[in-house]
């Protein structure tokens, strides 16, 4: 039964994204209790997908704590009741949280920017409709994007594809640095040209999969705005546009932080 729903979900995600991202509008308009139940269901669905994404990563050894965190006696005692090796279980839990953190932060950013776009376009039919749209689009497509990026950064056979992806990201950051003329450089400097002639077929497929996932991700957000918020094409494009400019805002914000705030000084002051 669960497997049937899971495979149907994957089928919809690939072939029928409109069905996949569509919410049952009536459920949201009934009453507060109904909305609470739907919100709870969406949270469980989101957390399930988060674990589905971060679990295998953690099991395969991803994530490394830069600082050693030791469980408190109460937590250690509780873990002792469930597992034999409390240290390993605690380490696994910390790495699981660490691996989930990136996609969790990305989800929050996507949700706020998407709903902001919907509000700006004046087509909001409710916050749960945005939660539904983002939960489903992030749960599958953004998770796929993150997984492919992880894969690109680790697999030996596709090192060139990873180098190219990093170079593109650096070029993106330098695009804003050059426009803003702030005289700031990345620690690793400008990207060197990558010889794509050495790109392997696996690398090509991984990059193609990555771009396809980005397309699906943005398209489902568009469909979510169209179907769940009953938005027009232009209003939906505004919502997707708001999400799309998030990386640019993030880069500009980071540059502003570096230029106007001496982080080193603040950290030193706090520690003192």
């Amino acid at each position, binding site marked *: 039964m669960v497997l049937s729903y899971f495979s149907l979900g994957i089928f919809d995600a*690939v072939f029928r994204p409109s069905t996949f991202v569509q919410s*049952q509008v009536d459920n949201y308009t009934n009453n507060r209790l109904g909305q609470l139940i739907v919100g709870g269901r969406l949270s469980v669905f989101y957390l399930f997908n988060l674990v589905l994404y971060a679990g295998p990563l953690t099991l395969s050894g991803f994530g490394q704590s830069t600082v050693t965190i030791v469980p408190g006696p109460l937590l250690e005692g509780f873990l002792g009741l469930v597992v034999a090796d409390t240290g390993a279980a605690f380490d696994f839990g910390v790495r699981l949280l660490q691996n989930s953190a990136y996609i969790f932060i990305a989800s929050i950013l996507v949700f706020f920017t998407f709903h902001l776009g919907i509000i700006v376009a004046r087509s909001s039919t409710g916050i749960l409709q945005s939660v539904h749209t983002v939960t489903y689009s992030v749960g599958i497509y953004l998770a796929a994007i993150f997984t492919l990026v992880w894969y690109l950064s680790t697999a030996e056979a596709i090192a060139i594809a990873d180098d190219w992806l990093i170079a593109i990201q650096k070029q993106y950051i330098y695009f804003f640095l050059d426009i803003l003329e702030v005289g700031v450089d990345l620690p690793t400097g400008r990207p060197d040209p990558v010889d794509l002639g050495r790109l392997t077929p696996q690398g090509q497929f991984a990059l193609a999969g990555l771009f396809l996932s980005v397309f699906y991700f943005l398209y489902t957000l568009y469909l979510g705005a169209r179907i769940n918020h009953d938005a027009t094409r232009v209003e939906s494009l505004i919502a997707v546009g708001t999400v799309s400019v998030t990386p640019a805002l993030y880069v500009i914000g980071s540059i502003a932080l570096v230029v106007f705030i001496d982080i080193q000084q603040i950290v030193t002051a706090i520690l003192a």
Partner: protein
Amino acid sequence: MSATTDTDGGTGDETSRKTGRVVFETTPTIKVTLIWFGITVVIGGGILLYLIANPELFGEKQLTDIVFWVIFLLFAAILLRFGIKMFILTRTNYVVTADDIRREYELVYRRHARELPIEKIRGIEFDQSRIQSVLGFGTLSFLAGGTDQSLGFVEFENLKQPHEARNRIRTLIARRADGD
């Protein structure tokens, strides 16, 4: 609570037993989907051929190859979707009885039916795309409260002679409202 009833599995006899006299029964056309399939083949094929003919379009051949695969996979998914849709449409029946309207299909020994009692119908939405309009087909959505995105609706997609079907169902609703 939804006014519609979704039924999965079972046999056709089970569904028939629950309903009254069949007023009319029809099947959807696959022509509209077939045309979309053809349009997708032409557009997708055209773009892919253009990329093959211009390998340096994005500066380096490898980049063009990546774009080629993205577009190929995307169009393959769209074509497969149209293929599945046509397959389902060929196995779909639209049934109107004196008591309810029903959309049902059978797919690889799996039967699915969605029913809506006549007295629960609150409105009929008629939709015709440009292609449907040219070919004389249309889509009728029978709404039972809520919106057309909710579960409370049954859709007769790609219906042949949609105006006739709409008029017959309107008459049926009016008769039911008059208590006939």
